[in-house]
């Protein structure tokens, strides 16, 4: 295994230390438990937006901490959900009194750890809400699975919800917004090469010289189909259509009901895309695929969206939610209304995403 690390054990901390040194004006890093937080937190009167997940997806989440996006981020070990103490301690550090929104990608581990964290935080008198992101249309039969994975739409949700928190949205309104962003966004990914988890030291899966896998997750989870390499346009079309033509999607999520004081089950439905929708189009590199190739994909994606009557009002092209050094890409489309669009355009100043400042 060849990586620019000192050892699998020190990788996450060394990387956090480097990020802290590179961006002292934006972020600070707390160790044991590990979390990244806004240099100016707590921000008086504002709800704190906290996310987290396994490491290996950088810049997500730590690189999205800063003005107009996350208030804190909890990095786990590589590809392993962080632990409740990280989530709790970061909440205590950045809570201004206005409460905390945990943005949680839908993986069993993340969900359970964030639920435990929420219970612990509530026990300490912090108002908390957990909102799931589950946007990966590659997960089929989701009635019989842990449901759709949280992938690319997480980045868009963190930007939009972070901007709303900056604007002063209260916790409930923020949770509503985050749920709206979640149900209106869909993604799909593909891999050209496998990633290698440092502690494992060998590739998670093997692809042949001319093979790709479509539908993979950001942890190298197997996809829908393994197939021969194809021109970028064909791959893009296949993935874009899977997203655009995806039916209404119904599932049950667990959210905290403050009035009842308990977790309740909620049915959420993602409405399908339709002609006339305005979307943010996000073409993401799994890390190893260079931006020049992403633009080849974007070219075709724009053509398909136009053909399908979707208007791309904004776009994001680059490595934002990665999978270690994996080559491959993902596409996310998020239907936006004027409110979301305004929040997307609002200033953001983080190590990984910056505009308007």
């Amino acid at each position: 295994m060849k990586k620019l690390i000192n050892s699998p054990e020190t990788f996450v901390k060394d990387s956090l230390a480097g990020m802290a040194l590179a961006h002292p004006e934006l972020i600070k890093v707390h160790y044991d438990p590990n979390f990244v937080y806004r240099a100016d937190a707590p921000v008086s009167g504002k709800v704190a937006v906290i996310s987290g997940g396994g490491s290996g997806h950088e810049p997500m989440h730590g690189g999205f901490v800063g003005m107009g996006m996350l208030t804190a981020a909890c990095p786990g070990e590589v590809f392993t959900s962080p632990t409740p103490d990280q989530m709790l301690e970061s909440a205590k550090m950045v809570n201004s009194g206005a409460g905390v929104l945990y943005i949680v990608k839908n993986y069993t581990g993340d969900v359970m750890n964030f639920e435990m964290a929420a219970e612990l935080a509530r026990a300490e008198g912090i108002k908390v809400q957990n909102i799931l992101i589950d946007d990966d249309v590659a997960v089929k039969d989701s009635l019989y699975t842990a449901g759709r994975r949280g992938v690319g739409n997480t980045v868009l949700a963190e930007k939009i919800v972070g901007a709303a928190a900056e604007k002063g949205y209260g916790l409930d309104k923020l949770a509503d917004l985050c749920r709206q962003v979640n149900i209106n966004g869909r993604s799909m990914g593909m891999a050209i090469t496998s990633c290698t988890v440092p502690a494992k030291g060998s590739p998670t899966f093997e692809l042949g010289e001319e093979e790709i896998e479509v539908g993979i997750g950001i942890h190298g989870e197997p996809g829908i189909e393994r197939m021969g390499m194809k021109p970028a346009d064909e791959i893009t079309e296949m993935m874009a259509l899977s997203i655009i033509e995806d039916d209404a999607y119904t599932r049950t999520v667990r959210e905290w009901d403050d009035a009842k004081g308990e977790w309740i089950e909620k049915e959420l439905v993602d409405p399908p895309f339709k002609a006339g929708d305005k979307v943010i189009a996000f073409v993401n590199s799994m890390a190893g695929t260079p931006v020049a190739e992403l633009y080849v994909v974007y070219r075709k994606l724009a053509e398909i969206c136009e053909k399908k009557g979707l208007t791309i009002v904004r776009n994001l092209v680059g490595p934002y939610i990665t999978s270690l050094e994996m080559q491959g890409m993902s596409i996310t489309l998020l239907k936006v209304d004027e409110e979301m669009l305004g929040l997307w355009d609002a200033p953001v100043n983080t190590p990984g995403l910056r505009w308007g400042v």
Partner: protein
Amino acid sequence: MITKDQIVAWLRRCADVLAENKKYLTDLDAAIGDADHGINMDRGFTRVVSQLPGVEDKDIGNILKMAGMALISSVGGAGGPLYGTFFMRAGMATAGKYELTNADVAQLLEAALDGVLQRGKAKLGDKTMVDALTPAVEAFKQTLNGNAETDTLTALEAAVAGAKGGMEATIPLVARKGRASYLGERSAGHQDPGATSSYLLLNALLTVVNEA
């Protein structure tokens, strides 16, 4: 009867067994998950052992709760909250005790399994650790049933045999919970890593009691 010292020895033994099986569990997880289960469990029990000296003179309940807390704050992933809850509940069920009767052990196991079920909402046959834990707890209780004289070793042997059977029975199953569920039909034909670590943990207890 299981003593406090045996509980402490169990936790150390768990750490050894998980260190030995780190690669094995990780490889099982690579096949249908994300290749970290062995690494996570090893990290967790290393933490448990490092915190043992601070609680060794406390009661069994406190020792097991410490183990639960240590797992929760060091394992992460699905394994962390599940095994963390397992040991937290085990600790709550044995609060104040310095030795455990067979009935105490049965309560411990039942409470721990309940915790896992509540936290993870898996059902039997979902291809998770529940598939190893459930038959183990059942076998333990059944062996005791109406027979207060049964020795702990016999009951534990039955429990471990149950866990082993449950673990092996996960092989043909299609996963319905956790990361393996994303594979759908493709998850069949592989043994579940969590069921395997559950078997190893119970077997470690048997070994310790056996050595006494």
